[in-house]
């Protein structure tokens, strides 16, 4: 029941036009090898759901520079002027989402919830075109769940079943994305024997992981 898959094969499962969630925060805790291989295989027309696009030509910024991205859902692109330029030029459609709302929308997609009720964004441009609902006399936006065809995530340690542990701020969006995609491909710094990760330190359970790629060969 090992989930270990060769890098090229794992990434080959992703077709052009797919919707991908990619973990990481300014490149920290992103699946670098999977991203590099997506670029190498020349994937295009991707929809990316991620916190940010890192810096120009770095990490998710490589996909931006390669012109592989058609649509982006993110909370922050301030440190990647290439993304902003492609957005202003109309090459990429960008949906900017408050970071906490982005996290909750992904969570709702993975947790089988119908949406997120949040006060964040009420009365701002973020609220445009969205349902609102009053609960106990207060108004909340109804933010819809997000799901993806694939989640590309990065872990510190994995066991062969696909149980995952993360490290400090490299955790960020990885655990929540692992629950919100049809297929989950995880890149891990280390793959250890089953039973070596104590159950209380398993942060992503093996049953949701489909393919496991080692960070280095």
């Amino acid at each position, binding site marked *: 029941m090992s989930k270990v898959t060769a890098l090229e094969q794992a990434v080959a499962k992703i077709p052009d036009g797919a919707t991908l969630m990619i973990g990481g*925060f300014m490149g920290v805790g992103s699946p670098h090898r999977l991203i590099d291989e997506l670029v190498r295989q020349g994937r295009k027309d991707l929809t990316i759901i991620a916190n940010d696009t890192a810096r120009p030509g770095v990490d998710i910024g490589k996909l931006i520079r390669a012109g592989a991205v058609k649509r982006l859902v993110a909370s922050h692109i301030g440190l990647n002027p290439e993304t*902003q330029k492609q957005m202003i030029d109309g090459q990429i459609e960008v949906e900017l989402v408050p970071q906490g709302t982005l996290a909750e929308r992904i969570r709702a997609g993975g947790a089988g919830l119908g949406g997120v009720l949040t006060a964040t964004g009420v009365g701002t441009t973020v609220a445009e075109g969205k349902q609102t609902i009053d609960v106990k006399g207060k108004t909340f936006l109804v933010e819809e769940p997000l799901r993806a065809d694939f989640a590309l995530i990065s872990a510190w340690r994995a066991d062969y079943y696909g149980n995952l542990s993360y490290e400090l701020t490299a955790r960020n969006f990885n655990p929540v994305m692992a629950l919100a995609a049809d297929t989950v491909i995880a890149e891990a710094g280390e793959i250890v024997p089953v039973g070596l990760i104590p159950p209380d330190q398993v942060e992503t359970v093996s049953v949701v992981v489909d393919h496991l790629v080692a960070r280095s060969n």
Partner: protein
Amino acid sequence: MDEKTIIAKRVAQELKDGNLVNLGIGLPTLVTKYLPAGIQVFFQSENGVIGMQPLPEPGVAADALTDAGGTPTSIIPGAGAFDSVTSFCLIRGGHLDVTVLGGLQVDEAGQLANWMVPGKMVPGMGGAMDLVSGAKRVIVAMTHTAKGAPKILKKCNLPLTSVRRVDLVVTELAVIQPTDEGLVLLEVADGVTVEQVVAATEARLIVPATVPTMQLAA
């Protein structure tokens, strides 16, 4: 003392022992250098840690421990790490005592705009909208003007970050408190007159009979 130092030192005085505090990227992060002696403040970084502190020395940076800008950082004993979902539960859920954010504009209603200039600069809101909606106290730390033009306006003309009224605005010239009645001038910086602050501000300021001078450590 330069503008940023004045702002950072004054903001630091607002932090209390045991507070959980989030600092925006840029100017606000300077605040950590000027904390009052003898208090312990827990700094949250929105990317997933409480107990963040600057790197103590060169050579100890780790890939998996950075601040929200991706810069290596370190942590105090007793720090805790968590994912982005939990990070924003803490922020949105009212667990954060203070957030200190930069600003592009603040207006007479105390509303803040700090996340985009349409057609020009579209950084995105990152965590700012959740921080302003959810923190118990929102402090805006910004220069009073930009290239000579006031940033404290009658009405923001950039997209708002939140409709929530911020709690305090600290600039290199003044400390201003948004209230039901409008913006109250609480303090002026050393060597700055009330008239100078009023001249640099588009919004109407409510000026009490006496306006004390900011008291900053040297």
